[in-house]
């Protein structure tokens, strides 16, 4: 079959007959929808239904594997641009009995993902066959979801961290808004990649106890609080073990702002700061 004259229906303005010159144009020229069609000033632009930028956003999520399971950590802030608008947002969620999901990025998209996952888990429960969806399956589902939306140029604007334990095996993975997905022993999203991953790479060990892993996460959350403007001093940690998922109550860490060098730092350099 000769597809050289093929034109996708509904994407073009009406041409009475396709002259040979028109046939050479690729179908990506002159779509009706979209803001780039300067040649169709007479046609009203259809409203864009694509996500172009996020509005209410959460900052980094961290995840580490330890001896008995997986820990996820995030703060409870959601920012509206440069304002820290909501300070009690839970960005960690249990998915079934085996997995915890943490999200950074657009909060409304995270809520939509939660709805979809709830339906997924309910459907799985209704099979009543003794099997349940584990972290590997949820990770794959989320990857196809995010990649599929990316291909429609309408992404769910999140970076997701997925941690779970099933049959004694720990699992820790990431899916980003364009569908990049990977697993690792320690992961982070957003600013956490720059500030927490170097510490993880230096100090993480496979046989850490729960206390050691929490201490490591708290060390990184503190650095993030000092150096990320969208972070607040109110954190939650999700602990996933064979027994299930437990998300802690929000708590704060001790900060230290009282270095002597910060008091009157320019005593020797008057005029600078």
């Amino acid at each position: 079959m000769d597809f050289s004259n093929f034109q996708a229906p509904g994407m073009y303005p009406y041409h009475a007959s396709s002259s040979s010159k028109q046939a050479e144009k690729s179908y990506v020229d002159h779509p009706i929808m979209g803001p780039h069609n300067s040649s169709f000033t007479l046609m009203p632009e259809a409203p864009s239904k694509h996500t172009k930028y996020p509005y209410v956003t959460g900052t980094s999520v961290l995840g580490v594997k330890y001896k008995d399971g997986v820990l996820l950590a995030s703060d409870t802030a959601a920012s509206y641009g440069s304002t820290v608008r909501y300070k009690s947002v839970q960005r960690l969620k249990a998915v079934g009995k085996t997995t915890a999901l943490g999200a950074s990025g657009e909060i409304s998209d995270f809520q939509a993902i939660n709805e979809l996952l709830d339906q997924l888990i309910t459907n799985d429960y209704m099979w009543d066959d003794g099997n349940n969806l584990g972290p590997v399956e949820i990770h794959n589902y989320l990857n196809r979801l995010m990649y599929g939306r990316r291909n429609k140029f309408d992404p769910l604007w999140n970076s997701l961290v997925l941690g779970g334990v099933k049959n004694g095996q720990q699992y820790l993975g990431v899916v980003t808004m364009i569908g990049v997905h990977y697993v690792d022993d320690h992961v982070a999203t957003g600013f956490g990649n720059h500030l927490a991953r170097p510490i993880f790479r230096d100090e993480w060990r496979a046989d850490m106890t729960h206390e050691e892993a929490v201490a490591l996460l708290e060390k990184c959350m503190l650095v993030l609080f000092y150096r990320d403007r969208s972070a607040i001093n109110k954190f939650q940690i999700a602990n996933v073990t064979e027994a299930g998922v437990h998300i802690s109550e929000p708590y704060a860490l001790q900060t230290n702002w009282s270095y002597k060098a910060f008091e009157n730092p320019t005593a020797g350099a008057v005029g600078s700061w």
Partner: protein
Amino acid sequence: MTKSNVMEVPPKGGFTFDLCRRNTMLQQQGAKLPKFRKTGTTIVGLIFKDGVILGADTRATEGEIVCDKNCEKIHYLAPNISCCGAGTAADTENVTDMVSSQLVLHRYATGRESRVVTALTMLKSHLFRYQGQVSAALVLGGVDVTGPHLHAVYPHGSTDTLPFATMGSGSLAAMSVFESRYKENLTKEEGMEIVSAAICAGIFNDLGSGSNVDLCIITKEGKEYLRNYQQPNPRSYSRSKGYDFKIGHTAVLSTKITQLRQHVQVLEGDAMEEE
């Protein structure tokens, strides 16, 4: 008519931007701007009990290529002051050389040891005059009669006075190490340990930084410059027999011998004496 009564106006400083429009036009037509050599970089400074420790990595990049695997990013300003530089390598090199010369003249004029704030003021006024076009981000540290000082200088001319500072593309990785480990009144050994850990965090986690760790420890006793204090990226294989290319291993296609010194025949006058 003489113009001797007119006061001479000193030439205005800064860059002229007359050719910018022509350059953008050329770029649109396909001409490529040359890539400039940046220092990618992780540079850090830390104040400890007796003075200042400066640290830097040693990778210089030109676009995506590593053009120098072992460059020196800790520059000399005065016997008691040093400066790490990040950003465009030519800018950091030349601005520190320039201020170093100005400090020598200043020492002659005042008859005193240079102070860190003098270097700071000279650097920041120069950078501010050039409105950020001189792309030099510096960590300036030293010890003078008033004690140890550490400053971060930004390309537009602002400065920070801090107990610990990091700059460059690896600054976040290095800062995460500092924020989690810094304490007041560190000893020299603790300080060196933290500084080299911060530089290593930059080397291994940032693509713009790499190779070796340079340290410079400044106290009121003097300056200790430890070039290649750590070399955590050695060449992993080197042939034990060495590399030997004997004559006969490669086919010779053609031979042309050119005299390095031209033989000149003198027709008239005296030949020049060979020195």
